[in-house]
């Protein structure tokens, strides 16, 4: 279960401060499949990064699985990302000089010994249907295969929350549908899924849709 209370995020760069999120309160139950929709620049990605402990809210409160996130230092936030959260990105974000299996094993490097047993990564590659490509580099894989590898990587530490940022945005319709089906299957197994999309057809498949506009929940 995750809960945001009155969360705001303001970026202070060299230019004028930009408010990406203002007063967002949100609650996602364990096992839920939530889609966050909105135009580009509406604050979707910022919200996802705060949920994934990549970015800290400027104000407000965020509780992830009972753990209050504000005030945690870099090591503690990294620990949460490692254990509780799996990220899936629009552009897959696989390490180009690591094989599929090495990409899946990436979070294990940062798990400090608390990693699952050695068979976890191969089993997950099998689960997402790309076991036969384990020794291939990302450049040798199709888009759909790359996103499946990325999903396996997101799952390798058995997180409670899957955060997907336009996971089908770089895939053709048929492949995108397959990847989405895979995410559905994972959700059916109890994984909480928060998915960012601007595609209404994708959003329609979620249990619940949250629409953002100008940093606020519409």
């Amino acid at each position: 279960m995750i809960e945001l209370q009155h969360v705001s995020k303001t970026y202070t760069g060299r230019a004028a401060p930009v408010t990406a999120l203002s007063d967002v309160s949100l609650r996602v139950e364990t096992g839920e499949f939530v889609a966050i929709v909105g135009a580009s620049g509406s604050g979707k990605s910022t919200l996802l990064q705060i949920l994934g402990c990549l970015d800290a809210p400027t104000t407000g409160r965020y509780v992830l699985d009972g753990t209050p996130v504000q005030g945690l230092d870099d090591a503690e936030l990294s620990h949460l990302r490692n254990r509780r959260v799996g990220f899936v990105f629009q552009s897959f974000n696989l390490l180009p000089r690591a094989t599929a299996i090495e990409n899946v094993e990436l979070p294990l490097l940062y798990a400090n010994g608390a990693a699952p047993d050695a068979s976890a990564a191969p089993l997950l590659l099998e689960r997402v249907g790309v076991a036969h490509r384990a020794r291939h580099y990302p450049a040798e894989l199709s888009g759909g295969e790359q996103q499946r590898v990325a999903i396996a990587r997101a799952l390798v530490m058995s997180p409670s929350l899957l955060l997907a940022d336009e996971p089908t945005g770089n895939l053709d319709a048929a492949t995108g549908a397959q990847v989405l089906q895979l995410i559905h299957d994972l959700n059916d197994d109890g994984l909480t899924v928060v998915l960012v999309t601007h595609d209404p057809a994708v959003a329609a498949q979620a249990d619940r849709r949250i629409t953002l506009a100008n940093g606020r929940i519409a």
Partner: protein
Amino acid sequence: MRLGTLARLSWRAMSRSRVRTILSGMGLVIGVLAITITVATGEGARRAVRGSFKAMFGSIDVLFVQPGGPAQRGMSTAADAVTTLTPDDAAAITAQVSGIREVGLAQDASKIVAEANGQNTTTSLWGVTANWRSLHGDSVASGSYFQDTDARVAVLGSGVAASLRASVGQRVRLSGIDFDVVGVLAPNGAGPGGISLDNIVYIPLGTASRRVFNKTSLNLIDVALAKPDAWQETQGAVERVVRARHALAPGQIDDFRVIAPRAMLARMESVDSGLARTLWWVGALGLGLGGVIVAVLAVTAALQRRHEIATCRACGATRRDILLQFWAESVCTATAAAVLGALLGVGVTALGATMMRANLAIDWPVTLGAVLATTLVGVIAGYVPARRAASVDPAIVLREAAP
């Protein structure tokens, strides 16, 4: 992150970006290679000097006392004309100077005609005490060395034995006197300037002084040092004893001289060390430049791999993990470059030593030192780029357009 994981990740990164790794480490490879070879050249020269001293004197841990002081020097025959150095001087040195292991006495003459088996040759003839062989480090190839005796026995240098086709049990004629050959020495090879160290005949000192040279004065006293590092003190003590025996008043110049091979060696090595210092600076400069190359390419890598860094951070890498990962990569690149440079250096040295018969000798402590110094260069050069990599904000990078 564990050390093994870091090493594995570094190896993976290095082996999968080969061009970058090679470019990055090239400067350091050349630096270590240069150091190894230049030091090998210097060390080889030093060993060659020591080696020729050894071949000439048997050991560098000796003092030579010769008759004839600074005023009497000049002509090569001066030593023959001066008769002031005597066996009693040698006895006094033995009795009164501490730090001495052994004292050998010698008379010598060059251009002595030796005849045997219908052959003849010109050789130098030395009348020596029986301990001369061990003092000089000679080894007997056949037969044996003589004892202190008045007998007409001779030990031939290998060159003389070969010229005369003489062997143990035969008779040779030296300066018109017959001698029984009791031993033949093993070859010593060439000394400084290519002169043969084997064209020599040894006979007992008693025989030489009574039957050949007809004099008791010595041409050489060979003092073996018990404490080689204290050679200067021993030299002073020897000079005092001989001056006292020769009744030289203060201010009066010596009528003998003491030669210390160690002093000659020290002079040669001090010339060497000026060159060595220059080479050190060249090597240090090379490693410094190599370090700059490592640092520049590591900064470039940190910038180019921002998306990879952000992805690792999203997967749970702490800033410290990223710092260590990038740092380890620089250190491993530098270390690998250093080891490669050292291996190449050792290889080139070995090849040069065998193919060109050059005087080269690997200085292992320096080679190891160069490798460690290069690793240190990697540690220093890699730190700032690693800090840079660690400071990449994953939130900003992941919001950017995909790579």
